[in-house]
Structures are given as structure tokens and as C-alpha cells.
């Protein structure tokens, strides 16, 4: 019996950008993304990321948000008072008392991806532990179409976990192992994770190796995700975020099926793509602040 397990191992962390002096900045804003597993805060000084914090989500959203922002400003000399505007995002966004506005994770994620990867990005696929988001955006990072699937476990990290459990394979090795096959097997035919699992058991009985079964499931998952992308309109420049983007078995098959490669993370990029939502939130906060100042 599995309880809620996190899809990819990660550690709580923080970062300060040594090249930015916040004392010289005219505006300081922040974005806080309270997700179901991790809570992230990004602090921006004018146009630059000043610091971020990445923490485990606790039992309630306000505390998780506070934890993340405190971790981000730790050691920077900043206090909460210095942050002029905060945008909350993620599933816990409406429960962040010190956020001036709540914005959906879809809009924030697109905005953050645009910042991290640059304006070429048109399609973003975020495959998390419990949901899957597909977003299409313009060169400014504004959303033009989106869908979010958090109803069905197929195409999420949870689905992959079920298979890793079944085969008693560490989740982080699934991708590699699935590529060690002589011949690419046909994908598992059931979309439903429950039925796919029975199918997997059947394949093992027929004498398939673990690697073959994993290959069949990784390719089923890649196919599943392609159908989600088709719905929002797929454009050439696409990026991958979220846990499954670290699964080479799914990513390589996805790229093969689409016939194009995901845009790699820029070399000089120091931000974990997990931060995209928080960064997008900080950017929204900056714009909202500028707008409200103009109004006076």
C-alpha cells in the first residue's frame, strides 16, 4: 500500500543572486507559489531575481507561504516590510494573507517560463506529481490557451509511481532503465493507471523484463501527454517542467513522437525550473505595483 510519496527527491534550498544589490533597487516584489508538495518564493529587485526559497509544504498554506518567503530573504538583510507587493499562486494561493493578489498557477507558470527560457517559448508542458498542465503562450508570456489535468493520474508522476512500485524500481531510475531495451515494445494500451497496472502484471507473467515493461509504460505516458498538447495547439518551441521532465525515458519518447526537441535550459540559467510559478508571480507583482503607482 503506497501513501502519498513525492515523485522526485529534492531538497529544501535557497539562493541569493550575488550580482544584485537590493538597496539600489527601486521596487522589490515577490511571488509565492504554494503547491501541494513544495512551496516556493521568489524575490525580485526591479528586473532581477534577488533570492528564492524552496520548501516543503506544511499542513497549511499561510505557514507554508511564510516559511518559503522567510527562507528566501534569509541572510539578504531584507525584511518583509521591504517587499512592496506579493502575488500568491499555486493551489494554496487564496490562503496567503500577506499576498496582495492571487493569480492562477497557469498564468504565473507561463510568465516565469518566459523569463527563464526567453521569449521564444510558445508551449509549456508541466508534468507534476499529481497534475499535468499544458500552456500555450505568446512572446510576452501571456497565456493563449491552457488546460490542466488534475483529475486523472495517467500522465502524472503518480501514475509513474504506481509502475515503479509494481516493479520495485526506484523512481529516479525508471527513465534510464526504460531505454535499456533491444527493441522498443508497443506502448501499454490502457490509459487508466489501474488497468495499465494489471496490463503490466500480465506482461511480466508473459516473461517481459522489467525494462521492457517500463519502456512500454514510458511510451504510453509520452503518447498521453502528446494528446494533451494537441488540444492546446502545439508550437515548435516547447519546454518541459515538473518531475517527469527529469525522466529521460518519457522525455526522449515524447520528443520522438513530436519530432522536435524541447528547448534546453539556457546555460547561464541558475534558477531551478521548479521556480517558474514563483518567478512569474514576482513579475506580475512588479507590474501590478507599477500600475498602482501610475494611478496616483
Amino acid at each position: 500500500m503506497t501513501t502519498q510519496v513525492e515523485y522526485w527527491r529534492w531538497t529544501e534550498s535557497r539562493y541569493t543572486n550575488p550580482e544584485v544589490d537590493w538597496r539600489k533597487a527601486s521596487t522589490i516584489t515577490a511571488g509565492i507559489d504554494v503547491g501541494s508538495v513544495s512551496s516556493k518564493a521568489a524575490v525580485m529587485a526591479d528586473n532581477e531575481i534577488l533570492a528564492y526559497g524552496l520548501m516543503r509544504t506544511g499542513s497549511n498554506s499561510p505557514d507554508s507561504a511564510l516559511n518559503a518567503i522567510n527562507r528566501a530573504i534569509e541572510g539578504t538583510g531584507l525584511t518583509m516590510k521591504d517587499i512592496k507587493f506579493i502575488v500568491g499562486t499555486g493551489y494554496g494561493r487564496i490562503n496567503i494573507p500577506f499576498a496582495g493578489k492571487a493569480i492562477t498557477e497557469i498564468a504565473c507558470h507561463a510568465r516565469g517560463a518566459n523569463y527563464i527560457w526567453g521569449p521564444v517559448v510558445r508551449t509549456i508542458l508541466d508534468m507534476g506529481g499529481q497534475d499535468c498542465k499544458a500552456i500555450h503562450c505568446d512572446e510576452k508570456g501571456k497565456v493563449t490557451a491552457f488546460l490542466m489535468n488534475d483529475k486523472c493520474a495517467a500522465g502524472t508522476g503518480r501514475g509513474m509511481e504506481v509502475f515503479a512500485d509494481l516493479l520495485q524500481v526506484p523512481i529516479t531510475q525508471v527513465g534510464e532503465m526504460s531505454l535499456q531495451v533491444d527493441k522498443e515494445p508497443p506502448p501499454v494500451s490502457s490509459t487508466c493507471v489501474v488497468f495499465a497496472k494489471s496490463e503490466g502484471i500480465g506482461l511480466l507473467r508473459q516473461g517481459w523484463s522489467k525494462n521492457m515493461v517500463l519502456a512500454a509504460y514510458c511510451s504510453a505516458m509520452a503518447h498521453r501527454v502528446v494528446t494533451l498538447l494537441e488540444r492546446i495547439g502545439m508550437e515548435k518551441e516547447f519546454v518541459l517542467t515538473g518531475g517527469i521532465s527529469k525522466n529521460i525515458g518519457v522525455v526522449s519518447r515524447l520528443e520522438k513522437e513530436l519530432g522536435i526537441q524541447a528547448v534546453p535550459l539556457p546555460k547561464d540559467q541558475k534558477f531551478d525550473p521548479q521556480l517558474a510559478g514563483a518567478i512569474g508571480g514576482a513579475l506580475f507583482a512588479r507590474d501590478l505595483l507599477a500600475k498602482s503607482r501610475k494611478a496616483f
Partner: protein
Amino acid sequence: MITAGIDVGSKTVKVVILQDGKILARSLVLTGFEQGKAAEEAFALALKQAGLSAKDIQKVVATGAGRTSVSFATESVSDVAADARGAVFINPNARTVIDVGAEEGRGISTDTRGKVIDFAVNERCAAGAGTFTEAMSRAIEVKLEDMGELSLKSTQEIPLNAQCAVFAESEVVSLVHAKTSKEDIARAIHDGISNRIAAMARRVGVQNDIVLIGGVARNKGFVASLKRQLEADIKIPDEPEYVGALGAAVIAAS
């Protein structure tokens, strides 16, 4: 005339042998991984019970998801056709037939002769069929057979938010951790699945008599939830899991 109906479901194979409108024998075996073999086994078992041999059977009609794997069948018919025919054979007033099996749920509207007028299916998603209850019973460590009784003792209605069997599993586990009583959780599980089944039945238009068939019909907790959802009385035949096979045998005889 002696005929046989074989219903090869995803979980069990059912056989009914019929002579001039009277049931001579019935059998049930687990499908396992080889449907063809399970069908042969179930057929042999029913023959033995009836004291007959294969050549005494004039016609064999197969139905169910694995119907094509029955090599000795004379003919095969769809699940919905067999369900409707079987339900009307048992209860001539049946107009809506709801069949909830392990992997599929079906809502069928039928005419007085057991001919299908319309149907809707919940398939390929475990959240809409018996598998859901089974997975949840494992998650809360209650025997599947005990789920029904348990849920009838519930004192509180609580919602189950997840609409997916996989996510619901985590949800019920956290409910158990939060010390929610298993009675209430069992009821929430049955409410969840019956809600989905009722929605599907409404698509074909619910009319009396409503007959519930399939293995899940034996689950009293599910039946109570479904009655609440449909706000109607539901008739359940004595051997609800055999209705599809019976329907196939009836079709074979006509």
C-alpha cells in the same frame, strides 16, 4: 432446446445452461490471464453440474469483453444486448438496466422484449466501475465483501473529492489517518461511485422498473447509495452476476 450463454468478463467468466426457459446449471470461474482457458473451464463445470456433455448443447452464445476468445461458441453478442435480454427474461417490467461489473458500468434502456433502445457506458476508467470499490477496500484494509455492511452503519455523509481511483486511494488513506470512521469512508466511497453510475443511467433516461445487475449489485452499500441518487426503487435479481450469461443463453434459444 438446450442452450448455453457464456459471459467472459474482465474478472470472472459466467456460464448459464438453459433448457426451455429453465436454468439447468450455472458456473463462475476467475478469468485470470487466459480468457479462452477460463471459458472452457467454466463451461465444463456447468456441463458437469447439469449432467450433460458438450454435444447436448445445441447452441452456445458468448458475450462480455472477452467474448471473441470463446472458440467453441456458435455466435457472440454484445454485453448490452445480453444484459437487456437477461434482465427482461427475469423481470418483464425491466425498462432500465444498470450493469456494474469490475471494469465497466452500463446503463441500458430496453423495450418489453429485451431489445436495447439506448445505452451509455463507463469504460476504461476504473473510477466508474467495481474496481474502484475494490481498490478502496484495499486502501482502508476492509474485505471487499464487508464494504457494503460497513457503509450502512455510517452516521455521517462526507465527500470524497478525488474522481480518480488512484488519487482517491491517497485520499481515503489520509481520511483513515485523520481518524475518520471506516463506516463513513465506506459510505463516501459508495456515494462516489454511485454518483457516477447514476449520471450515466440518466443519459439513457431512467424508467421503472430499474434492474441492477452485475457483481457489484451484491454490495448493499452501493445499492443504498444508488437508490438515494436515483430517488427510485431498484430491483435486484437473486443472482445478479449471471444475468449477462443468462441473456446470451436466451438469445441462443431464440
